[in-house]
């Protein structure tokens, strides 16, 4: 570093005369900035990725300055969010720059496990971590018991195939347990056993004339959140909006109708609405059909002769009437559901008048009950009665996204005999057992029962789990009945956790591997839909990872496969490098980074390789795909499944579900019992023909209402990035954007009438207890909840995760109380879902 300008050492002279032109001093270390007014945003670049804060899975762009992520917006090419994000999008910046992120691998040094027992983690090298994991895996193979390895998946991208399918299957384990049934499986049950669609539906808000939202809050959570936020104002202007939710939510606050249903009685309310439509003769006849002579025979409590009715796009409406609807008069529905008779009639007539442009938006609140399967069907049946299913202004299925699939045949060639045999063994979540049909997509044991894995592990049934790898999951927080998970995890001898933060699940782990924050640092892709457009959107590392972390779904299996190869088991390495060779060059990956990109290219190639018409955006090659970050389909075609093309047994929209009848029959046959027995074992009350139609099941409440007099309502905060945003200070600062919530506290909403009876004042600390657990929160007196019910948003109550999330991480002291501790362990056995809604939890409230 030298003085480069001699004149730098020259003195400036005082001139003494103001008129003299001032000579600026000579600069050496500086140069003058090029002349432009110093104003405005500094240079940066918007880079595309995907937000996975909720299940909308928004294509986003992130503004990067000096290698740092500083702002978030929607992807400019998105036909779903028009370049906007919901509050979660912004909140996530505090996740990637979370001061409590793991920055190195660590291992447990305290062999004792349990909540509140310090794991005494110490940092270790990547090599030590991976060697230890590989050794443990080889032990299982040497002992001939690879099935005792389990992989548990939380939030994922579609690159999951690698860690979730290929890895366990080639290794020899059947146990890949997803978190899916924590979210939505009972909801999907509702649409599958009516219209043959096992997925979230899409909603045509632009064309709807009547929007019936049931058990969710579209402008806050569930589906297509930014699109819903954008459109709701116009929908309210143009159409009628009715919201069924036991507590006031954001959509109901703005809507024409709020139907505050008693938790768990959704089936009765839905049937009551159906009863009005049928008896009034105002169902949508172009879809459902009509009496042959045009005379309406649907009269309360009276059976109807099936042969007098000619159906069109549907199947079994008269049977349904006879079995389940005829006695559910609006009076009776009002009595059971707590929604007024007048309102039931008004909503039914309003919907009928708007038919077929009726959008029935069925959410988890009406489905994720202990007996929620039929309730979900009942609500979705209203889409059938109004002709709003798969129709303009209604609920829709999806356009195709032509990405490549996992090559299952090729996968099999890498399985040795041990793997082939053991990967077909029963799974640890006991799906398909007599009392757990989990009949996803019509198949006994076809779906996951995430919450029941805790039972399988604890009871060592079907066998012991000796090694568990979890990624981006936190079942000890996110599954109702947390105490059961704490016990189950404590009993597993060796746990590996791939995570960004030391979460509750991590506290039971033996090896912890720091991972990428998906929106900012990870490669992946997801498929999603909204506004009639299906979308494939990439997750991409828009910044260099802040710490020395790996990508869970791709780098971990790759690095592990190298270690297993060193130990004489090359199958996984061979499988990965062969199955995911670069689709353009055929090159095999030489390292984990290359592997990740090749895998992503393999799956998404049909969208950008130009070989076939993708029926969507035209993308010119891989670089273009990465620059845009996403692909849109053509608009979904209305009525794609009308004309007998529903994927049900009959091809029709089934009010009498032949599809369910077959599925239940198959399960019963497998266990050599009748269907009634299956329902009894599954904690359902239906017997006989009732089992095949949408009907009302009395809500199952866990606990004696004499001791626990309040029904507990759980729902999602609009600031929840699942359970992961609670270490973000902004979460608490803006918690009051959830109706009835107060910033910086875990608010239990209680009606002032009840509060007065209990001598509780606003802001009092209260203890809430159920048969599942107990904890402290703060009472907020609020008219948005019905007397006899109390409501609290899911999210707070972490005892780990970070300095902001937990009251005291070192002492495992929670901040607020986790709803999943209050909601006792239970599931919906037909779908395999966690049961957290429908008022299964009853509680008592005491002033502290």
């Amino acid at each position, binding site marked *: 570093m*030298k003085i480069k300008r001699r004149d730098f*050492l*020259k003195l*400036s002279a005082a001139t003494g005369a103001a008129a003299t032109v*001032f000579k600026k001093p000579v600069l050496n*270390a500086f140069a003058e900035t090029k002349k432009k007014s*110093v104003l405005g945003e500094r240079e940066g670049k918007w880079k595309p990725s995907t937000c996975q804060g909720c299940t909308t899975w928004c294509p986003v762009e992130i503004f990067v300055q000096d290698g740092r992520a500083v702002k978030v917006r929607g992807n400019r090419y998105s036909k779903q969010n028009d370049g906007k994000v919901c509050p979660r999008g912004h909140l996530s910046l505090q996740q990637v720059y979370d001061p409590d992120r793991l920055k190195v691998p660590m291992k447990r040094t305290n062999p004792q496990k349990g909540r509140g027992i310090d794991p005494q983690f110490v940092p270790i090298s990547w090599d030590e971590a991976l060697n230890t994991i590989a050794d443990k895996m080889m032990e299982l193979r040497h002992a001939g018991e690879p099935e005792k390895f389990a992989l548990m998946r939380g939030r994922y991208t579609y690159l999951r195939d690698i860690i979730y399918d290929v890895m366990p299957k080639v290794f020899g384990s059947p146990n890949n347990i997803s978190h899916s049934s924590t979210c939505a499986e009972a909801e999907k049950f509702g649409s599958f056993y009516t219209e043959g669609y096992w997925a979230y539906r899409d909603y045509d808000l632009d064309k709807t004339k009547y929007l019936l939202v049931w058990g969710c809050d579209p402008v806050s959570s569930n589906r297509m959140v930014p699109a819903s936020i954008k459109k709701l104002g116009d929908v309210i202007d143009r159409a009628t909006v009715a919201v069924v939710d036991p507590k006031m939510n954001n959509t109901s606050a703005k809507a024409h109708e709020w139907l505050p249903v008693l938790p768990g009685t959704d089936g009765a309310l839905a049937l009551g609405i159906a009863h009005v439509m049928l008896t009034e003769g105002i169902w949508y006849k172009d879809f459902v059909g009509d009496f042959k002579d045009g005379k309406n025979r649907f009269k309360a409590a009276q059976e109807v002769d099936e042969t007098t009715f000619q159906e069109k796009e549907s199947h079994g409406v008269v049977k349904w009437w006879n079995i389940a609807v005829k006695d559910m008069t609006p009076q009776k529905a009002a009595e059971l559901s707590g929604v007024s008779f007048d309102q039931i009639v008004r909503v039914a007539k309003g919907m009928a008048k708007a038919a077929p442009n009726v959008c029935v938006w069925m959410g988890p609140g009406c489905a994720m009950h202990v007996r929620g399967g039929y309730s979900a069907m009942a609500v979705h049946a209203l889409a059938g009665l109004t002709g709003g299913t798969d129709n303009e202004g209604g609920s829709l299925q999806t356009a195709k996204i032509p990405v490549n699939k996992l090559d299952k045949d090729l996968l099999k060639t890498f399985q040795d005999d041990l793997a082939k045999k053991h990967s077909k063994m029963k799974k640890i979540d006991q799906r398909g057992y007599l009392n757990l049909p989990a009949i996803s997509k019509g198949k006994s044991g076809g779906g996951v029962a995430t919450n029941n894995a805790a039972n399988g592990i604890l009871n060592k049934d079907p066998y012991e789990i000796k090694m568990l790898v979890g990624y981006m999951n936190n079942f000890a927080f996110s599954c109702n009945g947390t105490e059961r998970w704490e016990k189950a995890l404590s009993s597993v001898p060796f746990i590996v956790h791939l995570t960004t933060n030391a979460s509750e699940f991590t506290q039971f782990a033996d090896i912890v591997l720091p991972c990428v924050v998906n929106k900012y640092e990870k490669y992946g892709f997801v498929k999603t839909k909204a506004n009639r457009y299906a979308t494939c959107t990439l997750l991409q590392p828009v910044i260099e990872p802040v710490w020395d972390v790996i990508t869970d779904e791709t780098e971990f299996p790759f690095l592990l496969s190298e270690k297993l190869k060193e130990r004489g088991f090359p199958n996984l390495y061979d499988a990965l490098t062969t199955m995911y060779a670069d689709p353009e060059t055929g090159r095999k990956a030489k390292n984990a980074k290359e592997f990740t990109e090749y895998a992503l290219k393999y799956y998404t190639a049909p969208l950008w390789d130009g070989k076939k018409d993708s029926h969507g955006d035209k993308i010119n090659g891989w670089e273009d795909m990465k620059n845009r970050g996403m692909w849109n389909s053509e608009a979904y075609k209305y009525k794609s499944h009308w004309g007998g093309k529903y994927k049900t047994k009959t091809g029709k929209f089934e009010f009498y579900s032949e599809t369910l009848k077959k599925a239940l029959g198959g399960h019963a046959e497998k266990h050599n019992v009748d269907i009634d027995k299956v329902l009894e074992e599954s904690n359902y009350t239906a017997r006989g023909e009732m089992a095949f139609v949408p009907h009302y099941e009395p809500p199952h409440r866990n606990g004696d209402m004499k001791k626990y007099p309040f029904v507990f309502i759980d729902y999602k905060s609009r600031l929840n990035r699942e359970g992961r945003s609670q270490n973000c200070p902004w979460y608490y600062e803006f918690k009051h954007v959830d109706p009835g919530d107060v910033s910086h506290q875990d608010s239990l909403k209680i009606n002032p009438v009840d509060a007065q009876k209990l001598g509780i004042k606003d802001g009092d600390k209260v203890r809430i207890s159920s048969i599942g657990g107990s904890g402290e929160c703060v009472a907020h007196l609020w008219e948005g909840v019905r007397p006899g019910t109390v409501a609290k948003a899911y999210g707070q109550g972490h005892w780990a995760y970070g300095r902001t999330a937990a009251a005291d991480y070192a002492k495992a002291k929670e901040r607020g109380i986790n709803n999943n501790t209050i909601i006792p362990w239970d599931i919906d056995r037909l779908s395999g879902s966690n049961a957290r809604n429908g008022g299964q939890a009853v509680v008592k409230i005491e002033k502290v």
Partner: protein
Amino acid sequence: MNEIETKLQQSNGLRLLAACFYEPDPTLFEEEKMCRNISAICADICPQACAAASDMYLALQNSSLQDLQIAHAELFLGPFELKASPYGSTYLEKARRIMGDSTMQVVQLYRKAGLEVDIKEPPDHIVIELEFLSYLFALETEALQNSESTQVAKLRAEQKVFQERYLLPWMPEFIENMKKGTENNFYLALADCLEKFLCQLTVPDQSIPTYECNGTQKYAAATAY
């Protein structure tokens, strides 16, 4: 000395002191009469530093280029531990690290003044910071000459922020490190001269306590916003 001349001399002095922290070039220093100029400036505006300035002059006469180079490297360059790290952030950010937060902030101040760093050193290097302050004083001289009172006020505010938050807080420790870190008379005298010269500067607006020679890093917290 009137106000304008004082400002100008302060500007000159800071620029020459900055020059002393570059790689030593005794020929250039001699040709440009650097030490003599420093002495003259000190005589005008900072009599306390006169002795140190003479010492610098003598030391420069009596040191070989190699001695100077070795001493300079040991103090400021490495490759081993720097005896007196010339980077502000080393002192201002608690864990000794270059390109810390305070660095980002000084860059912003430079940018505001219409400057960008034009040498390959982090922006909180001593030569850059001293030159920046010199530059601000030069601009003030100009503004005073033109009787632009708003501009003068603005520049004084900038000087105040820069001195109080970024430059002065780390000077005592840096100067101390220099004194402990070398036996070379030129750099010992330079440390002394710099210390006295800075003492002589006034921070505009007396409502906030100014720099104290033996003060601790009382402004360190303020750099952290």
